[in-house]
């Protein structure tokens, strides 16, 4: 049904132009799609990172830490914790539950001791703010 396109007459030139246009659009959509896919993958990895880190702690940490988070009676606290991003939550839990010191965390996250402390207290402030909001 379709003959070879030699780009001779108007219709063939038009077809070539359209094909070029389409190829460009398809390539862009494809790149976009792959970028979205990669981002999703990264996010899934980040979610998985926390439970994996728990395994490196002692068994006690695992059992004392996990049910606590799951059985948080205080709904507001649960939501406040959920609002934190992955890194903040990791920092908060490792300091509070795993009792990792700031200096250990600083080395882990490649930031200064002060940086970790600042982040930690910022997280605490955030949680307090969220809890206050929930109270009102």
């Amino acid at each position: 049904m379709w003959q070879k396109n030699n780009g001779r007459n108007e219709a063939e030139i038009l077809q070539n132009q359209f094909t070029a246009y389409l190829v460009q659009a398809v390539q862009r959509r494809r790149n976009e799609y792959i970028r979205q896919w990669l981002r999703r993958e990264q996010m899934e990895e980040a979610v998985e990172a926390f439970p994996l880190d728990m395994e490196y702690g002692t068994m006690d940490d695992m059992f004392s830490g996990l049910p606590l988070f799951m059985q948080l009676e205080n709904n507001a606290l649960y939501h406040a914790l959920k609002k934190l991003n992955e890194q903040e939550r990791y920092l908060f839990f490792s300091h509070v539950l795993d009792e990792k010191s700031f200096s250990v965390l600083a080395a882990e996250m490649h930031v200064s001791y002060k940086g970790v402390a600042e982040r930690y207290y910022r997280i605490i402030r955030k949680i307090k703010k969220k809890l206050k909001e929930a109270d009102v």
Partner: protein
Amino acid sequence: MNFKELLIRAKAGEETSMIMLLEMYKPLLIKRAICNGIFDEDLYQELCITLLRCIQVFRLQ
């Protein structure tokens, strides 16, 4: 029917013309829908949508 007529009809929303164009460009779309050596159905659907949008948006001189 040459390509120009086909495109004009597809632009006007004639379904058979759109399907013909889709069939025509199917190999191209399938080729681009292969990701890491695996045919990605979702991506293929996205590219089909892209084709339909291109038909609408492409400007005839």
